């Protein structure tokens, strides 16, 4: 299978406050840096569905935004479909022909839809701007076909977002992302605001669309259960770093990183009383993290002295399975 997206040592840091109390015109300002994404490498193959899981604040949404070129990366390379795209400025990328290839479904299906556009206008916007379809009847046809694909009744096309239910809004978001025939869709918690019953239909729809259209998915979520059902491979992030990656079976059945194990054990099980929680405390601060300290140190049940002076690298333990832990 062809690799559609390749990410190589990607870093995204945000400057926060200025270091030191006094300002000087002669010295360059030094900042405290928030390391949102820190030395992340992975790739996605054609038609593959990859899950990205982690707590909020671990950098998974930032990574999604950097890949979609909505934000610049600080260092590293992004290869998409044979083109190096990280050097194209976010503004210029909007005009690039590759723009149509990477699309995103945003987290909040309500605020990501323009309240003054009808559903039809929302879905036809990317068709006009990215595929240059200006013919009204062709636009109409395309929009109706997309609505059918995502199971949106055609009579809703003339409605405004506030007149739709949560599930319908999620469908509009998916239709808009699929409109320019992308090769990679980044889904940022598409079902976070939905009920279980609606979530089930949306998940089925997403799985069906992926198989039918052959697009690749990067599915960002904090719900491991959804990732398990929808994805071929899983990447677990903690404080900007990948701690474990592998196939769904690798990660769910034979996880080797204590953080992944903890995540899996905290999934509530149906009809079972919860086991005790092993991970306590808050994560370390992502601002100026100490070099050479494992990011999970302090919260890790296995933490030993070595974790405090040597940061574990992401190492292969089998063909598909990688773990970053001294005790893996």
């Amino acid at each position: 299978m062809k690799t559609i997206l390749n990410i190589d040592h990607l870093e995204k840091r945000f400057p926060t406050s200025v270091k030191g109390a006094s300002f000087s015109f002669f010295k360059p300002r030094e900042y405290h840096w928030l390391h949102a994404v820190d030395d992340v490498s992975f790739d996605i193959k054609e038609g593959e569905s990859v899950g990205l899981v982690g707590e909020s604040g671990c950098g998974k949404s930032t990574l999604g935004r950097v890949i979609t070129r909505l934000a610049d990366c600080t260092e590293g390379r992004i290869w998409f479909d044979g083109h190096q795209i990280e050097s194209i400025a976010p503004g210029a990328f909007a005009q690039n022909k590759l723009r149509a290839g990477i699309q995103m479904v945003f987290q909040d299906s309500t605020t990501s839809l323009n309240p003054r556009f009808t559903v039809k206008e929302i879905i036809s916007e990317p068709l006009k701007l990215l595929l240059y379809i200006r013919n009204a009847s062709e636009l109409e046809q395309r929009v109706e076909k997309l609505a059918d694909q995502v199971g949106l009744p055609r009579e809703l096309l003339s409605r405004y977002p506030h007149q739709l239910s949560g599930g319908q809004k999620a469908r509009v978001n998916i239709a808009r992302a699929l409109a320019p025939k992308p090769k990679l869709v980044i889904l940022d918690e598409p079902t976070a605001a939905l009920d279980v019953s609606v979530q089930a239909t949306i998940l089925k729809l997403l799985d069906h669309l992926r198989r039918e259209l052959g697009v690749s998915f990067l599915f960002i979520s904090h719900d491991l259960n959804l990732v398990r059902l929808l994805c071929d491979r899983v990447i677990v992030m903690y404080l900007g770093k990948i701690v474990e990656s592998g196939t769904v079976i690798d990660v769910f059945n034979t996880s080797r990183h204590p953080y992944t194990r903890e995540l899996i054990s905290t999934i509530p099980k149906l009809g079972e009383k919860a086991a005790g929680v092993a991970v306590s405390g808050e994560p370390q601060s992502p601002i100026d993290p100490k070099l050479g300290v494992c990011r999970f140190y302090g919260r890790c049940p296995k933490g030993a002295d070595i974790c405090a002076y040597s940061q574990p690298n992401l190492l292969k333990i089998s063909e598909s399975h990688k773990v970053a832990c001294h005790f893996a």
Partner: protein
Amino acid sequence: MSAIPLLSIENFSVEFRTRHGVVHALENVNLNVGHQEIVGIVGESGSGKSVLSLALMRILDPAGRITSGKAVFGGLDLVSAKEEDLAEIRGRELTMIFQNPRSALNPIRKVGQQLRDVLLRHTTTIHEQLRSRAMECLSMVRIADPERRMDAYPAELSGGQCQRVMIAMALAAKPSLLIADEPTTGLDVTTQAVVVDLIRDLVKTNHMSAIFITHDLALASQICDRIAVMHAGHIVEIAATEELFSSPRHPYTRQLINAMPHHCSHVSELGAIPGNLPDLRADTLPPCRFSMRCSSHVEACDLAPLPLSFINTHHQVACRFPL
């Protein structure tokens, strides 16, 4: 469960008057909460879970009205009680944890001050002890370094810590009933596990009762002794937690369980619930509000009123043809 329940809700109905007609948000809800019992209320959004909790606290929106029923809490009927009496109970005997801790806390008062307000209003703590009592409350909810956190504003705390502060405020006066309205939505899975663990521990060690409202069946199953399933303003099934999952009798409960991703190994196994909640503004709703979505619906379902009836001592279901 002792013979007299702590809270007994009988034929409880709530209506909302809106510009587009009267919304029958709750109809003839019957539910008992025993001493030292955690009762879960689960259902889709819009099923009336939060309306029930707000109506019990009598803090409904002015458009909402309790049209019938009783809710007897420790001998006092919350529906007919005077506002002065309610003010004495709220925050002291009957407390609530809200959905979004960030918006429920006052953003411009320090966490410690807000806790002291609660202690001052609802307990007999003397002024000199307020700070140390507030700190005890914070350490009770396992906030690290309570001394420092006392002087933090809510914006300086993480979501999980804010929710802990809310829990500390709700439990400061040692209430007998705690209503937790989706206390973990918006929190991470790891934080969610910790918060749920904390609520269960504190409720059990303080010999309190709790109503735990959530849309996540799996989460409810971890903490609750009994679970009531709501659909469109009706309680359709009440059962002990284990029994509800091992033998659900209402078709809606069965479908809800099947829609959970937990037991599936592939997406195709996920069961989706067809249709939507009925429009609660309609003048004549069928006696079973699930009938439009139910696969085993027959004509008899639309005729006589449908009460919640006992199948065995721990299991009630509102269905003419239970599974």
